[in-house]
């Protein structure tokens, strides 16, 4: 079991590129990469676990919808995210549990707010038994 996520650069914005053994882990890697970008996860303690659900017309749209929910969890509902676990994933549906705690700007190290998860350069695909994906964030 392995998953990995890193950022890449694009003009004024930032992208996330991830790979994992399974599709579920790929979604986890992208979600945790996004969370790290907005508010570094290493300082976050798990005080509650919330469930999120996203739907999309295809696997790529599903990834975008899922990441919007993660972004909302942090920026709208003000939760600092420690970890994301995908519980169920189908081509049009994903269920995940998010370990988190209330975001406290005095204690959590925050980065830059994300305006949107875009459809530009969007990719989710399986290559030689491993999943790879990338999305571009509007900053």
């Amino acid at each position, binding site marked *: 079991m392995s998953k990995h996520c890193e*950022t*890449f*650069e*694009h*003009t*004024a*914005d*930032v992208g996330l590129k991830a790979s994992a053994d399974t599709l579920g882990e790929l979604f986890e890697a992208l979600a945790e990469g996004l969370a790290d970008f*907005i*508010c*570094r996860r290493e300082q976050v303690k798990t005080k509650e676990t919330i469930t999120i659900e996203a739907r999309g017309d295809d696997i790529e*749209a599903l990834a975008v919808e899922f990441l*919007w929910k993660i972004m*909302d969890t*942090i*920026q*709208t509902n*003000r939760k*600092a995210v420690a970890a994301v676990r995908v519980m169920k994933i189908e081509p049009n549906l994903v269920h995940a549990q998010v370990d988190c705690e209330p*975001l*406290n*700007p005095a204690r*959590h*190290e*925050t*980065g*830059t*707010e994300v*305006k*949107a*998860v*875009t*459809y*530009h350069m969007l990719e989710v695909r399986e290559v030689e038994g491993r999943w790879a994906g990338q999305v571009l964030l*509007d*900053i």
Partner: protein
Amino acid sequence: MARQFEGKLERLDGNRWRIPRDASRGMRVDGIIYSSDELIKDVVAGGGLDQVANVATLPGIVGASLAMPDIHWGYGFCIGGVAAMDIDAGGVISPGGVGYDINCGVRLLTSDLHADDVRPRMETLTNQVFRDVPCGVGVGGPYTFSGGEISRLLNEGMKYLHHRGLASDEDLAATESAGSIGGADVSAVSMEARKRGGDQCGTLGSGNHFAEIQYVDQVYDAAAAAAMGLEQGRVTVMIHSGSRGLGHQVCGDYLKTMQSVPKRYGIDLPDRQLVCAPFDAPEAQQYLAAMRAAANFAWCNRQLLAEQIRKAFSHFFGKSAAQLGMAQVYDVAHNIAKVETYEINGKMRRLCVHRKGATRAFGPGSPDLPDRYRDLGQPVLIPGDMGRASHVLLGTAEAMRQSFGSTCHGAGRVLSRGEAIRKSAGRRIDKELAAMGVIAKSRSREGLAEEQPAAYKDVDDVVNCVAAAGISHKVARLRPMGVIKG
């Protein structure tokens, strides 16, 4: 990554370049890019030129697909782009032509304070503003609005804040569209978007958004500057922010729901992020109603930011904001689509003018301007980077003829955020800025590095280009003294 532009680019005159109409790629009009010889290298490297050509393919586009000298790559449409579509000739509206941050814009306040009197206390004044103005991730504002209140705010814009005693007649008069654009309809705004905006009105956000304490360092037109309250040495406050999470969600919602729309109307697009609908189609009208609601939200956001800054100054100096002369110079939108009338081939036509990273710059005599500016032209506010300068310009009659009453919106980035961070390794950007006489405060871990002056073109070059082209008139240059960022 932005790919190299492979189309034809020819020099039109000293300040404009042209991408000739290429029927093979479906272009209906030329692309015209405002740029000096010095800036064109950055313009080509910025990756927006293909997007200028793509926008020229959209139904109903008239004149040319325009780009300003601060152009850089965007989603579908470039940043720094202006596109006008003839509503009565099948012209379209596109959410991507406005962008995610609907009515991102700039507000400028003046004051009776003098830079020399304020400079010795700049650190503590900046700290006061940094404490009092909510900014950064996860920081809510002191203003919360119930569901019913947010509905009124979205439908009525600053008129609603005026009713609540949170905006004055003078604030409204000194705001584009009086801070209240007609035709907004809250029912076109999703509940998710409304929730995102509920407690974010009056918060700065992060990224390139800022509040800056400045002073007037150079006056180019003394009479115009005096009419705006911008005499040499005066302290000013500039605010750059937009419609926060609410506007971002509105754009995201409509980019998604409009994916299948172009096909329905037989519109063939070179890039799916140019999704659009004929202006009179129900899908277009619904987006327009939601976009206008988000625009109203953004004007209210900047109003409440200005209120908090006035309070911070008032607390700091022990005088009311009125005693400090903190009047609003103007407030402009630089991400918006508006219905405006222009003469095209000898006939007056109703156009849907998309400005994405471009500022309205109406010339003298426009009935849309408040009395105090009608003979001068519209004030145009151009933020630069936090080390060098910002500018105040006026719209011109030439802009009405050449660029659908539009001009540039800022300096334009030249370094990606990553490059900027790498270039600041081992450096203290706050110390470097302090040596330049600027106190800078940021909540985010890399905010100052990402936004360092070297990440942007020199705004003087951008402004000189639009002034030389005749689409703006220079009034004053403002230099930063204290900056707060999210």
